[in-house]
């Protein structure tokens, strides 16, 4: 592909940071299983433990609270199933969940719902904010886990995590927070009172795909998902991937060190993008919290609906014009589905089907936004001729 490409899909996966790649390559040259007792094994172990200390320092937690996983999905599954199973031993059989979680949270929760747990969906408003009063009212000592993400991956809405955590702490209910999208974009204190577990993923912040972490205090009661060598505090088994963990730590370091500066730059760029799209395309609608004064929206997220168009037609035409973005969730065969997040926000299905997410990251430039704004009006015009939400028939 020779055409210059504007990558506006950082929330799906961000380019790897050069220093993370270097850390990975350096670690990959060494042999050794971090669990082996010989010198090579000790060297590998040292890399892992240094990475653990680095991540812990960046997030304000103790090293023993960092459990490395094979990505965000595993961290979410471990926390939700692990807390639910352990809670069930004490007679806790309810699960509280927001309806706008990522599938890595939603699907384990729904699965547990079929395994004897009672799932209760927390109400969200039209901007995607969880109703904390309703959450407080639902909290009780029979709740095994409450799960609400820090910031939404589709519409970018930031949740009142501090209040949710405080409410859960007061009720003695374990709280899991998916912070995969928040890391690097929002100020983050993983030691927030009331947050029991926190899920992180490497590839959203310039680390490798397939590595992440669950932040979990030592006294959290979590039943393991993977049984085996018990490498990670006996709640996670599997030979540790030293190169990926080392690279992940480098990416987390940069994400936390640069967060304020990155957030400031991306907020300006994002607002230019949103203003530009709304000016260039009459009828376009911004979804989620506008986030103009308070940090109600992820700095890198712009999510818009184009009524009368189909999202996948827009995406295809933008891709052909060199601009890359996303429509939301698609099943494995690639059939576009209306986003469960937009539907939960009360967006009508035909409008939900005509929506695009543009997500900015560290390498985004004003030229990327310009490329989008150049291409978009013509693309929307074509896509609306092709119709929505279904094709016309002869």
């Amino acid at each position, binding site marked *: 592909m020779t055409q210059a490409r504007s990558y506006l899909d950082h929330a799906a996966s961000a380019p790897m940071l050069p220093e993370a790649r270097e850390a990975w390559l350096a670690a990959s040259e060494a042999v050794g299983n971090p669990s082996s007792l010989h010198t090579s094994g000790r060297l590998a172990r040292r890399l892992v433990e240094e990475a653990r200390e680095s991540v812990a320092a960046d997030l304000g937690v103790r090293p023993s609270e960092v459990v490395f996983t094979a990505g965000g999905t595993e961290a979410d599954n471990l926390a939700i199933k692990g807390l639910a199973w352990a809670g069930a031993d004490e007679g806790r059989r309810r699960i509280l969940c927001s309806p706008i979680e990522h599938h890595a949270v939603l*699907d384990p929760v*729904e699965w547990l719902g079929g395994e004897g747990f009672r799932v209760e969906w927390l109400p969200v408003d039209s901007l995607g904010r969880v109703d904390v009063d309703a959450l407080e009212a639902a909290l009780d000592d029979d709740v095994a886990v409450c799960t609400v993400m820090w910031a939404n991956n589709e519409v970018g809405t930031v949740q009142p995590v501090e209040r949710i955590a405080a409410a859960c702490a007061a009720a003695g209910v374990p709280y899991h927070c998916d912070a995969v999208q928040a890391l690097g974009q929002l100020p983050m204190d993983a030691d927030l009172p009331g947050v029991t577990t926190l899920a992180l993923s490497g590839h959203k912040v310039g680390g490798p795909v397939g590595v992440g972490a669950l932040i979990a205090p030592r006294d959290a009661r979590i039943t393991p998902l993977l049984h085996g060598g018990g490498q990670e505090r006996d709640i996670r088994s599997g030979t540790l991937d030293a190169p990926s963990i080392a690279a992940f730590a480098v990416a987390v370091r940069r994400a936390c060190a640069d967060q304020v500066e990155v957030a400031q730059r991306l907020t300006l760029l994002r607002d230019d993008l949103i203003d530009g799209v709304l000016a260039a395309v009459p009828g376009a609608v911004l979804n989620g919290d506008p986030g103009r004064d308070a940090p109600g929206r992820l700095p890198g997220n712009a999510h818009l609906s184009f009524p009368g168009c189909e999202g*996948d*037609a827009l*995406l*295809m*035409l933008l*891709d*052909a014009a060199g601009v890359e973005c996303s429509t939301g*969730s*698609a*099943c*494995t*065969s*690639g*059939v*576009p*589905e209306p986003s469960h997040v937009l539907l939960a926000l009360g967006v009508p299905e035909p409008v939900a089907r005509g929506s695009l997410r543009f997500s900015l990251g560290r390498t985004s430039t004003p030229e990327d936004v310009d490329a989008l704004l150049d291409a978009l009006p013509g693309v929307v015009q*074509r*896509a609306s*001729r*092709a*119709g929505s939400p*279904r*094709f*016309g*028939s*002869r």
Partner: protein
Amino acid sequence: MRVIAAMSGGVDSAVAAARAVDAGHDVTGIHLALSRTRQGARGCCSAEDARDARRAADVLGIPFYVWDVSAEFSHAVVDDFVAEYSRGRTPNPCLRCNERIKFSAVLDRALALGFDAVCTGHYARIVAGPHGPELHRARDDAKDQSYVLAVLGAEQVAACLFPLGETLKSEVRADAAARGLAVADKPDSHDICFIPDGDTAGFLRERLGDAPGDIIDAESGETLGRHSGAYAFTVGQRRGLGLTVPDEQGQRRYVVAVEADARQVIVGTDSLLGVRTITADSPVWCGTPPGDPAALAVQVRAHGERVGAVVEHDADAITAHLESPLRGVAPGQALVLYDGTRVVGSGTIRATHARAE
């Protein structure tokens, strides 16, 4: 040209897309999701075929997307299929899919999105003629699929690309292998795609339920037996009648008519199956309409024989007077008209007559 290549996940459409790329077109691969089996929360459709199609597009280095036409397909093809059988007719769902989905909904959408043509792996040829592009039979007569394309009007024919029309099937497999396409030795699909187990009668029974009625002798009017649904029978069918009473001459009995309203299946000997006159409605012309009358050849089923006929037509109907009788012609099938290798047009068969009229 900017071309949409419909990629089913099979070898033919993959090679067709590859040849469109070779011809210098700007090709985008599309897999049509025709149905969704409800699995899990996110209902996935023929995931295997979509994956094969995507992989072929990767090898060709072309963009690839899935277009969800399941709602249109279920309405225009599957519901129509069931409704036609319930009326005692014999529909051809592939033809209906070409007419209503591939070269209608999909073509319309492609044109609106700025594409110029739709490319498929059908075995048929588009040939430049004096009055514009013409639809012709494929060089590989055994694989020819012009019959199921005869529902395309001139405008649609003008926006089609069939890169396999000059090729033998065996050459297509070799071409796929040479290009490193993993689908090179994937078996062909023969069944109706939405009835993968091939049990059409079972599929219809699930949707139409029990509708018992009599099996009646065409000549004597006598009731010979019972059936549990006339929709399970097609003109020309011999098996599945379950008749115990033998014919006087010991001759085999065939379904000669299905009377859906009366729930009757009419049976008779071979000699009653011969048809000399066919009337069809909803005429479609693939190019300029023929003269009236015109001496043409007609075909009434995919890969069926062609016979000469004198054809008369007006805006609403086609009547074909056959030179020699055709056997087993059922209402609902398409009457396709040929002039040599050129496809002239088609209509949907409404009635047949044993006599030359």
